């Protein structure tokens, strides 16, 4: 299998989908002539031309809405946010229009659109440019939320997102763009709503997604040295949650820790812990623990920023708590 980067995998997904379906186009700030702020759309203008790779003015609310309108009229837009931090100025369009349109119209209109772009804490970008908004979007019935952690998933998930008939929030992680991995060439589809066991284990279930997968896998390796066997589950899709895969694992391990890069209060892990507890409370030998980003705005200073992220020591400590060792 070819070894390519997460960034190239995303580019491949868009390129392949645009080749097979003329209704697919990409629109956003700097996606065309500049080749993408993070170079995800590199070379696409040259390949597809200005009709299908479209630079916009700095008007997130406007072009998010334009994408939704185009989707209502039968196209399949891929709308790039330079980063999801900037989607905050477009949130009315995403929540009120993309997510609600099908319902409000009694099923008459579909909105097959992908909003994608980088997300998360990339380092020294401070409070405005480091948002993790997965919990915000996962809150909304009508939206699908996907967050790939590996190059292979990046490709397979984005292709599925583009083929979805519903609006998808597709959050990439800025620090993952250069990560390399084996990615199947050509048709490779990862189904929406399917989690993936990235490391099997029997003593504790570690539930994570996006860039925290790497930290979690490193923690699992360290735990193995101590004789603790951790199963690592990569959610991949945040909404709808693959609850079955989680329950299956927890029924086996009886313990769970959720590792997430968003804030703790009302974060993704809070919703997962609630749903798991409602169903398998009796199977749990310890309360579910969460390792989230600390509850402060994101600071500029690198040491401060690093201190708030889920880290191997924080994950290991949480696991010790739930295995009582």
């Amino acid at each position, binding site marked *: 299998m070819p070894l390519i980067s997460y960034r190239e995998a995303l580019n491949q997904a868009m390129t392949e989908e645009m080749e097979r379906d003329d209704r697919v*186009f990409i629109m956003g700030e700097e996606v065309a002539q500049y080749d993408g702020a993070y170079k995800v759309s590199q070379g696409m203008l040259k390949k597809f031309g200005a*009709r299908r790779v479209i630079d*916009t*003015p700095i*008007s997130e*609310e*406007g*072009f*998010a*809405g*334009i*994408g*939704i*309108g*185009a*989707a*209502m*009229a*039968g*196209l399949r837009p891929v709308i790039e946010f330079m980063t999801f931090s900037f989607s905050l100025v477009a949130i*009315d*369009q995403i929540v*009120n*229009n993309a997510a609600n*349109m*099908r*319902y*409000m*119209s*009694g*099923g*008459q*209109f*579909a909105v*097959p659109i992908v909003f994608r772009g980088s997300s998360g804490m990339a380092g020294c970008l401070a409070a405005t440019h480091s948002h993790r908004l997965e919990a915000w979007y*996962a809150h909304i*019935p*009508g939206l*699908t939320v996907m967050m790939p952690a590996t190059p292979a998933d990046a490709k397979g998930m984005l292709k599925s997102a583009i083929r*979805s*008939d*519903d609006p998808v929030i597709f959050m990439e992680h800025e620090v993952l763009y250069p990560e390399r991995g084996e990615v199947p060439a050509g048709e490779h589809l990862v189904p*929406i*709503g399917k989690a993936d066991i990235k490391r099997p284990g029997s003593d504790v279930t570690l539930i994570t997604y996006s860039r925290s997968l790497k930290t979690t896998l490193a923690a699992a390796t360290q735990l193995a040295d101590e004789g603790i066997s951790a199963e690592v589950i990569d959610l991949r899709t945040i*909404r*709808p*949650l693959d609850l079955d895969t989680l329950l299956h694992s927890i029924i086996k391990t009886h313990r769970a820790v959720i590792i997430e890069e968003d804030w703790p209060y009302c974060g993704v892990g809070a*919703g997962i812990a609630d*749903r798991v507890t409602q169903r398998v409370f009796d199977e749990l030998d310890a309360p579910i623990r969460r390792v989230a980003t600390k509850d402060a705005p994101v600071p500029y200073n690198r040491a401060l920023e690093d201190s708030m992220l889920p880290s191997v020591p924080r994950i290991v400590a949480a696991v010790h708590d739930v295995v009582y060792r």
Partner: protein
Amino acid sequence: MAQAKTEAKPVVNRTQALVWLRQMMLIRRFEERAEMLYQKGNKIGGFFHQYSGQEPVAVGSIGVLREDDYIITAYRDHGHALARGMSARAGMSELLGKVTGCSRGKGGSMHFFDVEKGFLGGHAIVGSHVPLATGVAFALKYRGEDRVCVCYFGEGAINQGSVHEALNMAALWKLPVIYIVENNQYAMGTSLERSTAVLDLRLRGATAYGIPGITINGNDIELMAKTTREAANRARGGEGPTFIEAKTYRYKGHSISDPGKYRLREELDSAMKNDPIMVYQNVLKQRGWIDEETADKMRDEIKTEVEEAIAFAEHSEPPSLDQLYEDITVAPFIPQE
């Protein structure tokens, strides 16, 4: 104040003119009866914004569109939907929250939809549908079609950022969209003078973006039609968007609960003396296209049509409770509970 009158030379033939008169009467009657149902019997809930007084704007402009064109508007949407040919039955059923409603009881007064008529909704976040209209026009141009999208909004919406972002991109990309601003003088209780530093809306919505802008008396139905036709021809010819400010006046409160204390009784009375429906009826009478008797007959037919729509709505089923989860997504929806 927008005086209702019409051009000396008719821009339509007799048949078309009578259809328009009838549509305006239908919209008026539909809302009068709906208001009664709202006030008595608690059959309609939520926000309910009436179009009364503004009928020529929707009827005249929609009247010159093709069947394959698109229309999108704000929450004051009953008039546009009926002008586009939505049945009174589907509209009334929606108001009563029935499954036979135009949005299956999920949208209500502010969110009428009709995919078959290219009616892309009623939208209730002020200004929020203006980018959608622009995106629809983007799709039409992308596919190389000569269809247009007509987008209605109130003058209050001109103060929303999303509107300006959309106007700019429509002009930049020469999209086939017609923006019709229905300037009924008030955004809820805020008059134009109290909300915009520049009173000439063309300067803000057209000149600023290099879009051709025109201000007209929107209550002159045939002028409305003529102006829209010209804009549609420009759009179909690849010349891009047009901005039309249609001056008009709303007779009712902003919504049903508004007693309208921000305007003088005399202002309303003088507007109502020029009721555009009566004015157009008189114009058609002068042309010899209709007489009193035919007009009365038309009114009677409409009364029957609306009563029949109410009966239909009343006898229709409400959505079953399990339909709460229906039509959220195209893919099977999994409630995250």
